[in-house]
Protein backbone atom coordinates (compact mmCIF):
# COMPACT_ATOMS: atom_id res chain seq x y z
CA UNK A 1 0.00 0.00 0.00
CA UNK A 2 2.65 2.49 1.10
CA UNK A 3 4.94 1.13 -1.58
CA UNK A 4 2.26 1.71 -4.19
CA UNK A 5 1.90 5.27 -2.89
CA UNK A 6 5.65 5.79 -3.07
CA UNK A 7 5.80 4.74 -6.69
CA UNK A 8 2.66 6.62 -7.68
CA UNK A 9 3.89 9.92 -6.23
CA UNK A 10 7.25 9.36 -7.81
CA UNK A 11 6.06 8.46 -11.31
CA UNK A 12 3.35 11.13 -11.49
CA UNK A 13 5.73 13.84 -10.27
CA UNK A 14 8.40 12.78 -12.75
CA UNK A 15 6.04 12.71 -15.71
CA UNK A 16 4.77 16.15 -14.69
CA UNK A 17 8.28 17.47 -15.24
CA UNK A 18 9.20 17.88 -11.57
CA UNK A 19 13.01 17.64 -11.25
CA UNK A 20 13.90 13.98 -10.70
CA UNK A 21 15.86 14.90 -7.57
CA UNK A 22 12.75 16.46 -6.01
CA UNK A 23 10.53 13.54 -7.08
CA UNK A 24 12.92 11.03 -5.48
CA UNK A 25 13.32 13.04 -2.28
CA UNK A 26 9.63 13.88 -1.76
CA UNK A 27 8.39 10.37 -2.51
CA UNK A 28 11.00 8.91 -0.17
CA UNK A 29 10.18 11.37 2.63
CA UNK A 30 6.43 10.80 2.25
CA UNK A 31 6.82 7.02 2.42
CA UNK A 32 9.05 7.24 5.52
CA UNK A 33 6.58 9.55 7.27
CA UNK A 34 3.62 7.27 6.59
CA UNK A 35 5.45 4.10 7.56
CA UNK A 36 6.75 5.52 10.85
CA UNK A 37 3.73 7.47 12.01
CA UNK A 38 4.18 6.32 15.60
CA UNK A 39 7.74 7.49 16.10
CA UNK A 40 9.17 10.88 16.95
CA UNK A 41 8.96 13.33 14.02
CA UNK A 42 7.58 10.39 12.00
CA UNK A 43 11.09 8.99 11.61
CA UNK A 44 11.79 11.86 9.24
CA UNK A 45 15.19 12.54 10.78
CA UNK A 46 16.33 9.75 8.49
CA UNK A 47 15.82 12.20 5.61
CA UNK A 48 18.66 14.66 6.34
CA UNK A 49 20.84 11.83 7.68
CA UNK A 50 20.53 9.83 4.46
CA UNK A 51 20.92 12.94 2.36
CA UNK A 52 24.09 13.97 4.18
CA UNK A 53 25.53 10.46 4.27
CA UNK A 54 24.62 9.87 0.62
CA UNK A 55 26.64 12.92 -0.37
CA UNK A 56 29.56 12.59 2.03
CA UNK A 57 31.27 9.68 0.31
CA UNK A 58 34.86 10.02 -0.80
CA UNK A 59 34.48 7.74 -3.89
CA UNK A 60 31.93 10.21 -5.29
CA UNK A 61 34.77 12.71 -5.72
CA UNK A 62 35.69 10.85 -8.91
CA UNK A 63 32.49 12.15 -10.54
CA UNK A 64 33.22 15.92 -10.46
CA UNK A 65 36.85 15.23 -11.38
CA UNK A 66 35.96 13.23 -14.50
CA UNK A 67 33.28 15.78 -15.44
CA UNK A 68 36.00 18.44 -15.19
CA UNK A 69 38.31 16.36 -17.41
CA UNK A 70 35.52 16.31 -20.01
CA UNK A 71 35.00 20.10 -19.85
CA UNK A 72 38.72 20.77 -20.17
CA UNK A 73 39.47 18.35 -23.01
CA UNK A 74 36.34 19.61 -24.73
CA UNK A 75 38.16 22.96 -25.18
CA UNK A 76 41.76 21.79 -25.27
CA UNK A 77 41.94 21.63 -29.05
CA UNK A 78 42.76 17.92 -28.86
CA UNK A 79 39.70 16.80 -30.85
CA UNK A 80 40.52 18.76 -34.01
CA UNK A 81 44.13 17.53 -34.01
CA UNK A 82 43.02 13.92 -33.55
CA UNK A 83 40.64 14.35 -36.48
CA UNK A 84 43.46 15.65 -38.69
CA UNK A 85 45.68 12.79 -37.67
CA UNK A 86 42.93 10.23 -38.37
CA UNK A 87 42.37 11.84 -41.76
CA UNK A 88 46.07 11.59 -42.47
CA UNK A 89 45.90 7.85 -41.75
CA UNK A 90 42.79 6.81 -43.68
CA UNK A 91 42.70 9.57 -46.28
CA UNK A 92 39.50 11.12 -47.62
CA UNK A 93 37.04 8.86 -49.40
CA UNK A 94 33.37 7.91 -49.35
CA UNK A 95 32.21 7.38 -45.76
CA UNK A 96 35.61 8.20 -44.27
CA UNK A 97 34.59 11.32 -42.32
CA UNK A 98 31.83 9.49 -40.39
CA UNK A 99 34.32 6.72 -39.70
CA UNK A 100 36.78 9.28 -38.34
CA UNK A 101 34.08 10.89 -36.21
CA UNK A 102 33.37 7.54 -34.55
CA UNK A 103 37.03 6.63 -34.12
CA UNK A 104 37.89 10.00 -32.55
CA UNK A 105 34.84 9.83 -30.24
CA UNK A 106 36.02 6.38 -29.08
CA UNK A 107 39.51 7.71 -28.51
CA UNK A 108 38.22 10.69 -26.51
CA UNK A 109 36.21 8.10 -24.54
CA UNK A 110 39.57 6.98 -23.21
CA UNK A 111 40.11 10.46 -21.77
CA UNK A 112 36.75 11.81 -20.68
CA UNK A 113 34.06 9.97 -18.81
CA UNK A 114 30.80 11.41 -20.08
CA UNK A 115 28.95 11.14 -23.38
CA UNK A 116 27.67 14.71 -23.78
CA UNK A 117 31.18 16.20 -23.28
CA UNK A 118 32.51 14.00 -26.08
CA UNK A 119 29.52 14.77 -28.30
CA UNK A 120 30.31 18.47 -27.85
CA UNK A 121 34.04 18.09 -28.54
CA UNK A 122 33.65 15.86 -31.61
CA UNK A 123 30.55 17.64 -32.86
CA UNK A 124 32.24 21.04 -32.79
CA UNK A 125 34.91 19.81 -35.20
CA UNK A 126 33.23 17.13 -37.28
CA UNK A 127 29.74 18.44 -38.00
CA UNK A 128 31.00 21.51 -39.83
CA UNK A 129 33.64 19.48 -41.69
CA UNK A 130 31.06 16.88 -42.70
CA UNK A 131 28.70 19.60 -43.89
CA UNK A 132 31.41 21.02 -46.16
CA UNK A 133 32.00 17.54 -47.53
CA UNK A 134 28.32 17.24 -48.39
CA UNK A 135 26.88 15.15 -45.57
CA UNK A 136 23.38 16.14 -44.39
CA UNK A 137 23.41 17.75 -40.93
CA UNK A 138 20.90 15.32 -39.45
CA UNK A 139 23.09 12.39 -40.47
CA UNK A 140 26.24 13.98 -39.02
CA UNK A 141 24.41 14.74 -35.76
CA UNK A 142 23.24 11.10 -35.57
CA UNK A 143 26.74 9.74 -36.14
CA UNK A 144 28.30 12.02 -33.52
CA UNK A 145 25.52 11.41 -30.96
CA UNK A 146 25.75 7.64 -31.34
CA UNK A 147 29.55 7.58 -31.37
CA UNK A 148 29.75 9.62 -28.17
CA UNK A 149 27.67 6.93 -26.42
CA UNK A 150 30.67 4.58 -26.55
CA UNK A 151 32.33 7.01 -24.16
CA UNK A 152 30.62 5.70 -21.01
CA UNK A 153 31.72 2.14 -21.89
CA UNK A 154 35.32 2.92 -22.77
CA UNK A 155 37.13 3.71 -19.52
CA UNK A 156 37.21 6.09 -17.71
CA UNK A 157 33.46 6.38 -17.27
CA UNK A 158 31.25 8.34 -14.89
CA UNK A 159 28.52 5.71 -15.31
CA UNK A 160 30.77 2.93 -13.97
CA UNK A 161 31.76 5.09 -10.99
CA UNK A 162 28.10 5.61 -10.07
CA UNK A 163 27.41 1.87 -10.48
CA UNK A 164 30.39 1.04 -8.29
CA UNK A 165 29.13 3.37 -5.55
CA UNK A 166 25.77 1.56 -5.66
CA UNK A 167 27.21 -1.96 -5.89
CA UNK A 168 30.03 -2.45 -3.39
CA UNK A 169 31.02 -5.79 -4.94
CA UNK A 170 31.99 -4.21 -8.26
CA UNK A 171 35.21 -2.21 -8.07
CA UNK A 172 35.92 0.74 -10.34
CA UNK A 173 39.08 -0.79 -11.91
CA UNK A 174 37.24 -4.07 -12.65
CA UNK A 175 34.33 -2.19 -14.25
CA UNK A 176 36.68 0.03 -16.24
CA UNK A 177 38.50 -3.02 -17.60
CA UNK A 178 35.23 -4.83 -18.31
CA UNK A 179 33.88 -1.90 -20.35
CA UNK A 180 36.87 -1.79 -22.70
CA UNK A 181 36.08 -4.66 -25.10
CA UNK A 182 32.30 -4.03 -25.28
CA UNK A 183 33.00 -0.31 -25.80
CA UNK A 184 35.36 -0.95 -28.70
CA UNK A 185 32.93 -3.49 -30.17
CA UNK A 186 30.12 -0.93 -29.91
CA UNK A 187 32.23 1.63 -31.76
CA UNK A 188 33.15 -0.83 -34.50
CA UNK A 189 29.50 -1.89 -34.76
CA UNK A 190 28.49 1.76 -35.28
CA UNK A 191 31.00 2.21 -38.09
CA UNK A 192 29.21 -0.45 -40.19
CA UNK A 193 25.82 1.30 -40.58
CA UNK A 194 27.46 4.76 -40.67
CA UNK A 195 29.69 3.93 -43.64
CA UNK A 196 27.02 1.80 -45.33
CA UNK A 197 24.44 4.62 -45.08
CA UNK A 198 26.97 7.14 -46.42
CA UNK A 199 27.72 4.95 -49.43
CA UNK A 200 24.19 3.84 -50.32
CA UNK A 201 22.83 7.38 -50.04
CA UNK A 202 25.86 8.79 -51.84
CA UNK A 203 26.51 11.28 -49.11
CA UNK A 204 29.74 13.22 -48.79
CA UNK A 205 30.05 13.80 -52.53
CA UNK A 206 32.66 16.49 -51.97
CA UNK A 207 34.76 14.43 -49.59
CA UNK A 208 37.33 13.97 -52.37
CA UNK A 209 38.03 17.71 -52.13
CA UNK A 210 39.18 17.37 -48.54
CA UNK A 211 42.93 17.75 -48.28
CA UNK A 212 44.85 14.83 -46.83
CA UNK A 213 47.03 16.27 -44.07
CA UNK A 214 50.71 15.22 -44.03
CA UNK A 215 51.19 12.20 -41.80
CA UNK A 216 54.19 13.13 -39.66
CA UNK A 217 53.19 16.74 -39.10
CA UNK A 218 49.71 15.75 -37.96
CA UNK A 219 51.10 12.98 -35.77
CA UNK A 220 53.32 15.53 -34.04
CA UNK A 221 50.35 17.87 -33.58
CA UNK A 222 48.16 15.09 -32.19
CA UNK A 223 50.83 13.57 -29.95
CA UNK A 224 49.71 15.46 -26.82
CA UNK A 225 46.17 14.16 -27.19
CA UNK A 226 47.33 10.66 -28.11
CA UNK A 227 49.34 10.48 -24.88
CA UNK A 228 46.38 11.37 -22.64
CA UNK A 229 44.64 7.96 -22.46
CA UNK A 230 48.03 6.32 -22.03
CA UNK A 231 48.62 8.53 -19.00
CA UNK A 232 45.12 8.02 -17.52
CA UNK A 233 44.56 4.31 -18.20
CA UNK A 234 48.21 3.32 -17.97
CA UNK A 235 48.63 5.24 -14.71
CA UNK A 236 45.68 3.43 -13.18
CA UNK A 237 46.85 0.07 -14.52
CA UNK A 238 50.38 0.55 -13.17
CA UNK A 239 48.91 1.45 -9.79
CA UNK A 240 50.36 4.95 -9.92
CA UNK A 241 47.05 6.48 -8.99
CA UNK A 242 43.47 5.71 -8.03
CA UNK A 243 40.68 6.55 -10.51
CA UNK A 244 40.03 9.88 -8.75
CA UNK A 245 43.71 10.78 -8.83
CA UNK A 246 43.96 9.73 -12.47
CA UNK A 247 41.16 12.19 -13.20
CA UNK A 248 42.96 14.99 -11.40
CA UNK A 249 46.22 14.25 -13.21
CA UNK A 250 44.23 14.40 -16.46
CA UNK A 251 42.75 17.74 -15.37
CA UNK A 252 46.18 19.30 -15.00
CA UNK A 253 47.53 17.60 -18.10
CA UNK A 254 44.52 18.89 -20.09
CA UNK A 255 44.98 22.41 -18.70
CA UNK A 256 48.64 22.28 -19.68
CA UNK A 257 47.80 21.21 -23.24
CA UNK A 258 44.97 23.72 -23.57
CA UNK A 259 46.74 26.71 -22.03
CA UNK A 260 50.38 26.19 -22.93
CA UNK A 261 50.63 23.85 -25.94
CA UNK A 262 47.57 24.51 -28.08
CA UNK A 263 46.63 27.84 -26.47
CA UNK A 264 42.89 27.29 -26.94
CA UNK A 265 42.09 27.95 -23.26
CA UNK A 266 42.70 31.44 -21.91
CA UNK A 267 42.97 32.27 -18.22
CA UNK A 268 39.57 33.91 -18.18
CA UNK A 269 37.98 30.76 -19.66
CA UNK A 270 38.89 28.90 -16.49
CA UNK A 271 36.04 30.40 -14.49
CA UNK A 272 33.48 29.16 -17.01
CA UNK A 273 35.08 25.73 -17.30
CA UNK A 274 35.10 25.20 -13.54
CA UNK A 275 31.64 26.68 -13.07
CA UNK A 276 30.10 24.55 -15.79
CA UNK A 277 31.80 21.37 -14.59
CA UNK A 278 30.89 22.14 -10.96
CA UNK A 279 27.25 22.78 -11.76
CA UNK A 280 26.97 19.69 -13.96
CA UNK A 281 28.51 17.58 -11.21
CA UNK A 282 26.18 19.14 -8.65
CA UNK A 283 23.19 18.20 -10.80
CA UNK A 284 24.39 14.58 -10.91
CA UNK A 285 25.38 14.41 -7.24
CA UNK A 286 22.16 15.92 -5.93
CA UNK A 287 20.22 13.13 -7.68
CA UNK A 288 22.69 10.60 -6.25
CA UNK A 289 22.17 11.83 -2.69
CA UNK A 290 18.39 12.21 -2.89
CA UNK A 291 18.15 8.76 -4.43
CA UNK A 292 19.68 7.65 -1.12
CA UNK A 293 16.47 8.73 0.64
CA UNK A 294 14.39 6.89 -1.94
CA UNK A 295 16.48 3.73 -1.59
CA UNK A 296 16.29 3.97 2.21
CA UNK A 297 12.50 4.15 2.10
CA UNK A 298 12.41 1.18 -0.31
CA UNK A 299 14.51 -0.89 2.06
CA UNK A 300 12.66 0.08 5.26
CA UNK A 301 9.32 -0.58 3.64
CA UNK A 302 10.54 -4.00 2.57
CA UNK A 303 9.14 -3.77 -0.94
CA UNK A 304 12.13 -5.08 -2.77
CA UNK A 305 11.90 -8.69 -1.57
CA UNK A 306 8.29 -9.31 -2.61
CA UNK A 307 8.89 -7.72 -6.01
CA UNK A 308 12.06 -9.74 -6.49
CA UNK A 309 10.28 -12.95 -5.49
CA UNK A 310 7.39 -12.24 -7.83
CA UNK A 311 9.74 -11.66 -10.77
CA UNK A 312 12.03 -14.55 -9.96
CA UNK A 313 9.11 -16.98 -9.55
CA UNK A 314 7.19 -15.68 -12.54
CA UNK A 315 8.20 -18.71 -14.60
CA UNK A 316 10.07 -16.58 -17.15
CA UNK A 317 13.34 -18.27 -16.34
CA UNK A 318 16.75 -16.64 -16.14
CA UNK A 319 16.90 -15.47 -19.75
CA UNK A 320 13.26 -14.43 -19.82
CA UNK A 321 13.96 -12.15 -16.86
CA UNK A 322 17.07 -10.78 -18.59
CA UNK A 323 15.02 -10.04 -21.71
CA UNK A 324 12.44 -8.30 -19.51
CA UNK A 325 15.17 -6.17 -17.90
CA UNK A 326 16.56 -5.18 -21.31
CA UNK A 327 13.09 -4.19 -22.52
CA UNK A 328 12.39 -2.24 -19.33
CA UNK A 329 15.67 -0.36 -19.67
CA UNK A 330 15.07 0.45 -23.34
CA UNK A 331 11.75 2.05 -22.39
CA UNK A 332 13.28 3.81 -19.37
CA UNK A 333 16.19 4.99 -21.52
CA UNK A 334 13.79 6.79 -23.84
CA UNK A 335 12.78 9.13 -21.04
CA UNK A 336 15.42 9.04 -18.33
CA UNK A 337 19.10 9.95 -18.30
CA UNK A 338 21.71 7.35 -17.42
CA UNK A 339 22.47 8.44 -13.86
CA UNK A 340 18.79 8.40 -12.90
CA UNK A 341 18.37 4.97 -14.50
CA UNK A 342 21.17 3.57 -12.36
CA UNK A 343 19.94 5.20 -9.17
CA UNK A 344 16.34 4.08 -9.61
CA UNK A 345 16.81 0.63 -11.11
CA UNK A 346 20.02 -0.76 -9.60
CA UNK A 347 18.53 -1.13 -6.07
CA UNK A 348 15.55 -2.92 -7.63
CA UNK A 349 17.50 -5.12 -10.05
CA UNK A 350 20.42 -6.04 -7.81
CA UNK A 351 18.52 -8.67 -5.77
CA UNK A 352 17.37 -10.27 -9.03
CA UNK A 353 20.94 -10.38 -10.31
CA UNK A 354 22.07 -11.89 -7.02
CA UNK A 355 19.30 -14.50 -7.15
CA UNK A 356 20.54 -15.74 -10.51
CA UNK A 357 24.17 -15.38 -9.34
CA UNK A 358 24.93 -13.09 -12.25
CA UNK A 359 28.40 -11.59 -12.19
CA UNK A 360 27.86 -8.05 -10.91
CA UNK A 361 30.61 -6.56 -13.07
CA UNK A 362 29.09 -8.17 -16.18
CA UNK A 363 25.64 -6.97 -15.09
CA UNK A 364 27.04 -3.44 -14.71
CA UNK A 365 28.41 -3.56 -18.25
CA UNK A 366 25.01 -4.66 -19.60
CA UNK A 367 23.22 -1.87 -17.71
CA UNK A 368 25.80 0.63 -19.00
CA UNK A 369 25.29 -0.61 -22.56
CA UNK A 370 21.57 0.02 -22.10
CA UNK A 371 22.29 3.49 -20.72
CA UNK A 372 24.57 4.13 -23.71
CA UNK A 373 21.69 3.17 -26.02
CA UNK A 374 19.42 5.50 -24.07
CA UNK A 375 21.85 8.37 -24.65
CA UNK A 376 20.91 8.39 -28.31
CA UNK A 377 17.36 7.03 -28.25
CA UNK A 378 14.88 9.85 -28.92
CA UNK A 379 12.94 11.61 -27.50
CA UNK A 380 15.24 12.09 -24.50
CA UNK A 381 18.77 11.54 -25.74
CA UNK A 382 21.42 13.63 -24.04
CA UNK A 383 24.08 13.06 -26.69
CA UNK A 384 21.75 13.76 -29.61
CA UNK A 385 20.57 16.92 -27.92
CA UNK A 386 24.14 18.20 -27.88
CA UNK A 387 25.02 17.13 -31.44
CA UNK A 388 21.71 18.37 -32.87
CA UNK A 389 22.22 21.73 -31.19
CA UNK A 390 25.62 22.05 -32.85
CA UNK A 391 24.22 20.93 -36.22
CA UNK A 392 21.15 23.17 -35.73
CA UNK A 393 18.68 20.43 -36.65
CA UNK A 394 15.66 19.23 -34.64
CA UNK A 395 16.06 15.81 -32.98
CA UNK A 396 13.13 14.47 -35.05
CA UNK A 397 15.24 14.75 -38.21
CA UNK A 398 17.70 12.17 -36.94
CA UNK A 399 15.07 9.42 -36.69
CA UNK A 400 15.74 8.35 -40.28
CA UNK A 401 19.39 7.55 -39.51
CA UNK A 402 19.58 6.82 -35.80
CA UNK A 403 17.55 3.59 -35.96
CA UNK A 404 20.34 1.73 -37.75
CA UNK A 405 22.88 2.74 -35.17
CA UNK A 406 20.57 1.72 -32.33
CA UNK A 407 20.23 -1.72 -33.93
CA UNK A 408 24.02 -2.00 -34.25
CA UNK A 409 24.61 -1.21 -30.59
CA UNK A 410 21.73 -3.43 -29.46
CA UNK A 411 23.40 -6.34 -31.28
CA UNK A 412 26.57 -5.70 -29.28
CA UNK A 413 24.46 -5.77 -26.09
CA UNK A 414 22.97 -9.12 -27.09
CA UNK A 415 26.47 -10.42 -27.81
CA UNK A 416 27.72 -9.34 -24.36
CA UNK A 417 24.68 -10.99 -22.73
CA UNK A 418 25.25 -14.22 -24.69
CA UNK A 419 29.04 -14.23 -24.20
CA UNK A 420 29.84 -12.75 -20.76
CA UNK A 421 33.53 -13.32 -21.49
CA UNK A 422 33.45 -10.33 -23.85
CA UNK A 423 33.21 -8.19 -20.73
CA UNK A 424 34.88 -10.41 -18.15
CA UNK A 425 37.95 -11.59 -20.02
CA UNK A 426 39.97 -8.38 -19.65
CA UNK A 427 39.39 -7.78 -15.92
CA UNK A 428 40.20 -11.44 -15.25
CA UNK A 429 43.33 -11.14 -17.37
CA UNK A 430 44.43 -8.01 -15.52
CA UNK A 431 43.75 -9.68 -12.20
CA UNK A 432 40.96 -7.44 -10.82
Amino acid at each position, binding site marked *: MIAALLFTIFIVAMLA*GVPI*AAALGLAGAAAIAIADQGTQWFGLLAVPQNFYAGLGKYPLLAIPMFVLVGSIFDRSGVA*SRLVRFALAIVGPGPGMLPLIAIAVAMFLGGISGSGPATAAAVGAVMIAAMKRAGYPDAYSASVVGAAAATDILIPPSVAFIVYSVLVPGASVPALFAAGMVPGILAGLALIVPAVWLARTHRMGAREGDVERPPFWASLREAAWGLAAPVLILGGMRMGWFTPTEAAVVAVFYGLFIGMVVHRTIRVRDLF*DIFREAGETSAIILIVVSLAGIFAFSLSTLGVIDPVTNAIVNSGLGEWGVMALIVLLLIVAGM*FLDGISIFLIFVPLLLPIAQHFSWDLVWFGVILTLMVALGQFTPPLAVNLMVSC*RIARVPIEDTVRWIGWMLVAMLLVTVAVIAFPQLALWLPARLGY
Partner: protein
Amino acid sequence: MSAALPMSDPTSPDLPETTAADEPTRVPLRLEDWLTVVSMALLALITFANVLVRYFTDQSFAWTEEFSVFLLIVMTLVGASAAVARNRHIRIEFLADGGTPQRRHRLALLGALAMALLFFVIAVLSVRMVWDHYIYEEISPGLGLPQWWYSIWLPVLSLAIGLRAVGRFHRLRRAGVQA
Protein backbone atom coordinates in the same frame (compact mmCIF):
# COMPACT_ATOMS: atom_id res chain seq x y z
CA MET B 1 38.34 24.25 -53.72
CA SER B 2 39.98 22.53 -50.86
CA ALA B 3 38.06 22.22 -47.62
CA ALA B 4 40.67 22.02 -44.92
CA LEU B 5 39.56 21.06 -41.45
CA PRO B 6 39.62 23.81 -38.86
CA MET B 7 42.79 23.78 -36.82
CA SER B 8 41.33 24.96 -33.58
CA ASP B 9 38.03 24.25 -31.92
CA PRO B 10 35.65 27.14 -31.60
CA THR B 11 36.41 28.24 -28.04
CA SER B 12 32.92 27.42 -26.86
CA PRO B 13 30.60 25.06 -28.67
CA ASP B 14 27.20 26.54 -29.24
CA LEU B 15 25.37 25.29 -26.19
CA PRO B 16 22.46 27.21 -24.69
CA GLU B 17 23.53 26.67 -21.09
CA THR B 18 26.72 28.58 -21.73
CA THR B 19 25.49 31.13 -24.22
CA ALA B 20 22.00 31.92 -22.92
CA ALA B 21 22.05 34.87 -20.56
CA ASP B 22 20.80 34.15 -17.06
CA GLU B 23 17.46 35.55 -16.03
CA PRO B 24 18.07 38.45 -13.67
CA THR B 25 17.75 37.34 -10.04
CA ARG B 26 17.51 39.51 -6.96
CA VAL B 27 20.45 37.77 -5.31
CA PRO B 28 23.17 37.54 -7.97
CA LEU B 29 24.01 34.00 -9.16
CA ARG B 30 27.67 35.04 -9.10
CA LEU B 31 27.56 34.17 -5.41
CA GLU B 32 26.92 30.48 -6.06
CA ASP B 33 29.14 30.52 -9.14
CA TRP B 34 32.17 31.73 -7.19
CA LEU B 35 31.60 29.19 -4.43
CA THR B 36 31.23 26.43 -7.03
CA VAL B 37 34.41 27.45 -8.84
CA VAL B 38 36.43 27.84 -5.65
CA SER B 39 35.35 24.50 -4.18
CA MET B 40 35.89 22.71 -7.51
CA ALA B 41 39.37 24.23 -7.87
CA LEU B 42 40.27 23.38 -4.26
CA LEU B 43 39.11 19.79 -4.75
CA ALA B 44 41.33 19.43 -7.80
CA LEU B 45 44.31 21.08 -6.11
CA ILE B 46 44.06 19.06 -2.89
CA THR B 47 43.78 15.77 -4.75
CA PHE B 48 46.68 16.69 -7.03
CA ALA B 49 48.76 17.73 -4.03
CA ASN B 50 47.99 14.31 -2.55
CA VAL B 51 49.51 12.57 -5.56
CA LEU B 52 52.59 14.80 -5.54
CA VAL B 53 53.18 14.53 -1.81
CA ARG B 54 52.92 10.76 -1.96
CA TYR B 55 55.48 10.53 -4.75
CA PHE B 56 58.03 13.00 -3.55
CA THR B 57 57.89 12.26 0.16
CA ASP B 58 56.80 9.14 1.95
CA GLN B 59 54.21 11.01 3.94
CA SER B 60 50.53 10.39 3.74
CA PHE B 61 48.24 13.28 3.21
CA ALA B 62 45.13 11.28 4.02
CA TRP B 63 43.71 13.71 6.57
CA THR B 64 42.66 15.91 3.65
CA GLU B 65 40.00 13.33 2.77
CA GLU B 66 37.62 14.74 5.35
CA PHE B 67 38.08 18.25 4.02
CA SER B 68 37.56 17.06 0.43
CA VAL B 69 34.31 15.36 1.39
CA PHE B 70 33.16 18.61 2.99
CA LEU B 71 34.09 20.60 -0.13
CA LEU B 72 32.25 18.05 -2.25
CA ILE B 73 29.09 18.58 -0.19
CA VAL B 74 29.41 22.37 -0.39
CA MET B 75 30.04 22.28 -4.14
CA THR B 76 27.03 20.03 -4.70
CA LEU B 77 24.68 22.23 -2.68
CA VAL B 78 25.78 25.59 -4.11
CA GLY B 79 25.91 24.14 -7.64
CA ALA B 80 22.44 22.71 -7.16
CA SER B 81 21.25 26.11 -5.98
CA ALA B 82 22.51 27.85 -9.14
CA ALA B 83 21.05 25.02 -11.22
CA VAL B 84 17.61 25.68 -9.69
CA ALA B 85 17.75 29.32 -10.80
CA ARG B 86 18.96 28.29 -14.26
CA ASN B 87 16.40 25.45 -14.47
CA ARG B 88 19.11 22.93 -15.30
CA HIS B 89 18.07 20.10 -12.98
CA ILE B 90 17.43 16.76 -14.66
CA ARG B 91 13.75 16.27 -15.38
CA ILE B 92 11.55 14.57 -17.92
CA GLU B 93 10.74 17.38 -20.34
CA PHE B 94 8.89 15.23 -22.83
CA LEU B 95 5.36 15.62 -21.42
CA ALA B 96 5.78 18.75 -19.33
CA ASP B 97 7.14 20.90 -22.15
CA GLY B 98 4.42 19.90 -24.60
CA GLY B 99 0.71 20.74 -24.50
CA THR B 100 -0.92 24.12 -24.12
CA PRO B 101 1.05 27.12 -22.82
CA GLN B 102 -1.35 27.13 -19.87
CA ARG B 103 -0.41 23.56 -18.92
CA ARG B 104 3.30 24.19 -19.45
CA HIS B 105 3.10 27.20 -17.16
CA ARG B 106 1.29 25.28 -14.41
CA LEU B 107 3.71 22.35 -14.56
CA ALA B 108 6.72 24.67 -14.41
CA LEU B 109 5.23 26.28 -11.29
CA LEU B 110 4.63 22.82 -9.80
CA GLY B 111 8.25 21.83 -10.44
CA ALA B 112 9.56 24.93 -8.67
CA LEU B 113 7.19 24.37 -5.74
CA ALA B 114 8.21 20.72 -5.35
CA MET B 115 11.87 21.70 -5.25
CA ALA B 116 11.16 24.46 -2.69
CA LEU B 117 9.09 22.10 -0.51
CA LEU B 118 11.71 19.36 -0.47
CA PHE B 119 14.61 21.63 0.42
CA PHE B 120 12.66 23.53 3.09
CA VAL B 121 11.78 20.15 4.63
CA ILE B 122 15.44 19.12 4.52
CA ALA B 123 16.52 22.49 5.97
CA VAL B 124 14.14 22.19 8.93
CA LEU B 125 14.88 18.53 9.63
CA SER B 126 18.62 18.98 9.35
CA VAL B 127 18.59 21.70 12.02
CA ARG B 128 17.61 18.91 14.36
CA MET B 129 20.46 16.75 13.07
CA VAL B 130 22.97 19.56 13.60
CA TRP B 131 21.56 20.17 17.09
CA ASP B 132 22.17 16.50 17.94
CA HIS B 133 25.73 16.80 16.65
CA TYR B 134 26.16 19.87 18.85
CA ILE B 135 24.70 18.68 22.15
CA TYR B 136 26.23 15.20 21.94
CA GLU B 137 29.55 16.84 21.00
CA GLU B 138 30.10 14.52 18.09
CA ILE B 139 33.62 14.57 16.72
CA SER B 140 34.54 14.14 13.07
CA PRO B 141 36.27 10.80 12.44
CA GLY B 142 39.30 12.12 10.56
CA LEU B 143 40.44 15.41 12.04
CA GLY B 144 38.63 15.25 15.36
CA LEU B 145 36.83 18.53 14.76
CA PRO B 146 33.31 19.16 16.09
CA GLN B 147 30.95 17.52 13.59
CA TRP B 148 28.57 20.48 13.65
CA TRP B 149 31.19 22.72 12.04
CA TYR B 150 30.57 20.68 8.92
CA SER B 151 26.90 19.77 9.22
CA ILE B 152 25.72 23.33 10.00
CA TRP B 153 26.09 24.13 6.32
CA LEU B 154 23.47 21.56 5.31
CA PRO B 155 20.48 23.55 6.68
CA VAL B 156 22.00 26.85 5.53
CA LEU B 157 22.60 25.74 1.95
CA SER B 158 19.35 23.73 1.77
CA LEU B 159 17.55 26.92 2.72
CA ALA B 160 19.40 28.69 -0.10
CA ILE B 161 18.25 26.05 -2.62
CA GLY B 162 14.68 26.35 -1.34
CA LEU B 163 14.80 30.15 -1.68
CA ARG B 164 16.18 29.88 -5.22
CA ALA B 165 13.19 27.65 -6.04
CA VAL B 166 10.83 30.25 -4.53
CA GLY B 167 12.59 32.92 -6.59
CA ARG B 168 12.07 30.88 -9.73
CA PHE B 169 8.41 30.36 -8.79
CA HIS B 170 7.93 34.13 -8.51
CA ARG B 171 9.72 34.85 -11.77
CA LEU B 172 7.50 32.30 -13.53
CA ARG B 173 4.39 33.83 -11.94
CA ARG B 174 5.41 37.34 -12.92
CA ALA B 175 6.21 36.31 -16.48
CA GLY B 176 2.76 34.71 -16.75
CA VAL B 177 1.73 32.20 -19.40
CA GLN B 178 4.25 32.25 -22.26
CA ALA B 179 3.09 31.20 -25.68
